[in-house]
């Protein structure tokens, strides 16, 4: 079930709020279908704004974002994962996961079946009838992930989704996220503060800078695509993290 992920092209995309300063300036980027892009940079560099523009929650002040070279702004199926799991507390795990399908008017039996399958896929098969207050932070994020996948998205937008979790939970979620990505082939934009996380996940790392806002650099990650937790122990991974950190510091210090 490889999705029909689009090619996404950013042309001179910039953003300012009202008469304020630019929060993003002249972003040029071409993203291949199924590519995994991590976005990294200091607070206030426009990472979240960038995601919100891809999602269509916010409009660029200048330039344009094209999906499959269509200028009319038609968007592929997009799913957003917020910093907070943003679950509805009165719905069960299954109820939360099927919510997007319910909003689309999908018949009850079918959306229940999809939700049950996704619940198992993210490793929550045993807690489908629980309410969010009964779940740990990591489990809530898994529900949020499953909900985002319920519409079989072409593009997944993740805004520091695992930032509040402990390191072990975070690493496991990263690995599971990559496994899902390999299988389903959506394009991912993943905002993070952690270089290690970015190197583990990304094909390319987009480094943004603030004051003035600019695209500092784009760092390709040359690691094999099938990445597991074992990779984290390897020398090549440590070298890649060190290299990315060095490049990031050298450009951000300029």
């Amino acid at each position, binding site marked *: 079930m490889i999705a029909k992920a689009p090619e996404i092209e950013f042309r001179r995309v910039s953003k300012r709020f009202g008469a304020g300063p630019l929060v993003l300036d002249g972003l040029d980027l071409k993203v291949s279908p199924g590519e995994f892009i991590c976005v990294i940079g200091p607070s206030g560099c426009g990472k979240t704004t960038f995601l919100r523009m891809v999602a269509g929650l916010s409009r660029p002040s200048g330039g344009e974002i094209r999906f499959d070279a269509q200028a009319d702004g038609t968007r592929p199926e997009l799913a*957003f994962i*917020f910093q*907070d799991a*943003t679950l*509805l507390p*009165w719905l069960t795990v299954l109820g939360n996961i099927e919510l997007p399908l319910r*909003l689309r008017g999908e018949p009850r039996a079918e959306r229940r079946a999809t939700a049950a399958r996704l619940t198992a896929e993210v490793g929550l098969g045993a807690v489908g009838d629980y*309410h969010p*207050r009964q779940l740990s932070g990591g489990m809530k994020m898994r529900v949020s992930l499953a909900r985002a996948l319920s519409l079989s998205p072409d593009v997944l937008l993740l805004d520091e989704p695992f930032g509040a979790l402990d390191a072990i939970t975070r690493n496991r979620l990263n690995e599971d996220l990559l496994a899902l990505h390999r299988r389903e082939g959506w394009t991912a934009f993943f905002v993070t503060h952690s270089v290690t996380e970015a190197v583990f996940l990304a094909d390319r790392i987009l480094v943004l800078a603030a004051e003035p806002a600019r695209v500092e650099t784009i760092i390709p990650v040359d690691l094999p695509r099938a990445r597991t937790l074992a990779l984290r122990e390897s020398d090549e991974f440590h070298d890649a993290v060190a290299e990315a950190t060095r490049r990031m510091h050298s450009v951000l210090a300029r």
Partner: protein
Amino acid sequence: MSPTGTWREYIGWPLLFGAGLLGLWYAVKGIFALPAYTLPAPHEVLGALFDQRTALARAALATAKGSLAGFSAAVGLGFALSLLIAAFRVLRIGLYPYVLFMQMVPIIATAAIIVTWLDAGLPSVAAIAFLIGFFPVVASTVAGLHSVPSEQVELFRLYKARPWQELFLLRVPSSLPYFFTGAKIAATLAVIGSVTGEIFAGSTARGGGLGFMILIYKSSVNTPGIFAATLLCCLLGFLFVGAVLLLKRFFLRKWHDSLDTDFNPL
């Protein structure tokens, strides 16, 4: 149960303090040598409750009817108006300020007017109970309908939810804790409103009610009777609030955290 105590404590201490307050009551009465028509002793109040049991039971039933009718209308119509206010921006801007304003109207004044307008029986009593509860329900529910976390609203917009879906699948469930807070206020006020109405209707009242009994006892200087009728008003109010809290528990217990504080504020 709260980790800070056991059921035994939560029953034992209130009983102990209750006994202490009753002792204080007897002490005040004894020290100042107060007669029953000024301050009846607790056992004299219970005596009046027993002597007048038929009349008081009938009156309590009448008050309960008026309160229940007014309360139900306040909750039902209040919720309906809240939905309209949430759905239509023009109502929110134009009408909602008056809802907040109407909360400030003293119920005594309303009672005086309603009793001159309506039949001085169940209709006017219910109308007063309704008016006193309606505005708190609307104010709380509207506040609830508009205090949905913005990320949840964005989530619905991102999934292209229709406005009615946003209202009924997001705003309404999200507002329920607020709605129940309003309903709890309305339940407390409903009995107060009914009794106020009954007192205002005075001798013209048909169907009686506890407020009417208070008037009668007052005219015959039956102070223990007034205390007994007042005690029943309190019990009635407790019954109403308890019913609302049980409903709240039934609807929210699975997902809402703040329930324990309803019965036990610790």
